[in-house]
């Protein structure tokens, strides 16, 4: 499973939606759509740090970096030094 699928699976397992086929797009803002509650922001942060073995620094502690699957992957790419 690649990073994007891992992150998607984690987010989907925490979605507060009751339609079985919620269609979460890679650029959907999960916080604005009300898919998750505020506690999820911390849970997501802890997940990213432990699952991908990275330390999110204070200056990266911007909700935008965690608001969509694509933004999370972009942050991980920057942290892990992946180049396009």
């Amino acid at each position, binding site marked *: 499973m690649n990073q994007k699928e891992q992150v998607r699976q984690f987010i989907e*397992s*925490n*979605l*507060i939606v*009751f339609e079985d086929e919620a269609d979460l797009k890679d650029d959907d803002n999960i916080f604005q759509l009300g898919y998750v*509650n*505020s*506690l999820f*922001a*911390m*849970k997501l*942060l*802890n*997940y990213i740090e*432990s699952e991908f073995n990275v330390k999110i620094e*204070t*200056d990266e*502690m*911007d*909700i935008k970096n965690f608001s969509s699957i694509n933004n999370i992957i972009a942050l991980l790419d920057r942290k892990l030094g992946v180049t396009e």
Partner: protein
Amino acid sequence: MSETVAQTISSAEEAAFQIDRVRQFVDKEIRPYTSEFDKEQLIPETLIKKLANNGYLAGNFPKVYGGLELGPLDYGRLTEEIGRVSPAVRSVLTVHCSLVGESLLRWGNTEQKEKFLPGMASGDTLAAFALSEPSVGSDARNVETSYTKADKGYLINGKKKWITMGARADLLLVIASCEDQVSAFLVDSNTEGIKRSQIMDLMAGRAAYTAEIEFDNVFVPENHLLGNEGGGFTYIVNTALDHGRYSIAWAGLAVAQEALHAMVKYARKRKQFGTGIYNHQLVQEMISNAVVNVEAARALCTKAATLREEQHEDATIQTTIAKQFASKIANSVANDALQVHGANGFSAEFIVEQLYREAKVFEVIEGSTQILQQVIARHGLTRFHK
């Protein structure tokens, strides 16, 4: 004996020793005076110094900052031992070590940690968490205390209320907003423009220096911003309240455990109708319920400790579950303990009077029972649908 087993036994002995020491400290320095603190509505400075000298004001801090570096379980047990006899003294740990200490440890930069944590460990700097306001409780995202940018810092204006330790603290972690951004600031409580007053004669926490705090153009230097601008609610408040809930879970267990002891002690001694009241089955029902509830709360707190130690993704929700349950049973056990005491239970001569009053606040602070029930329900709805 293998080295691993030897190490396990050694660390278990060490942990047991520490708890024994805490019990001795509590029995000598706190238990005889807890009604006095309540009556005088203060915690003596000498006790605060003794708490610091024993490392209890930094139980959860790393040793490098003067702490005991206790893991979540031992820190919980420390909280329980102190909370059994004095919810007010325990509240120092909740706000100073858990809410502010853990927020600094998680989000402070090196300079901030080195500046504040050693002083917090030594007791020279007592800290409080300033979130609630006259009009803002559960809806913490919408704090009305505001900040604006100033030359080399920020200016804070507004009013906080119900701030535990607020009238005594040297350092305030203040949550304020600027337009749609919420940020957190480390504020010296002696800064010009701060006016504090202790809220007296409360039903609970009389000795916990609960305060109303006004901020009138209070200047905060830019290096006292904790985390980054805009991260105040999502990250700082959530971090602080998660640790606060963990502390209150153990605080609820503490009151329930002490109430159970008081209930049993009294039931064994008190005679009515020519026999000890412990022989009456309806008294036994109350004791039975208390035993089961205390055991269940302890199991939930211990599970939360284990998941926190593992940094498990469910640590936060497990903590929420433990807090919700322990705070409720603290009330039911304290209520039954007072019932067993009859008229004597209303006298400050017996600790159940204080436990009964103090228990209720656990259902209000660090997330009310009703707010936490919604959080737990949502967890259930996302977790158990398949």
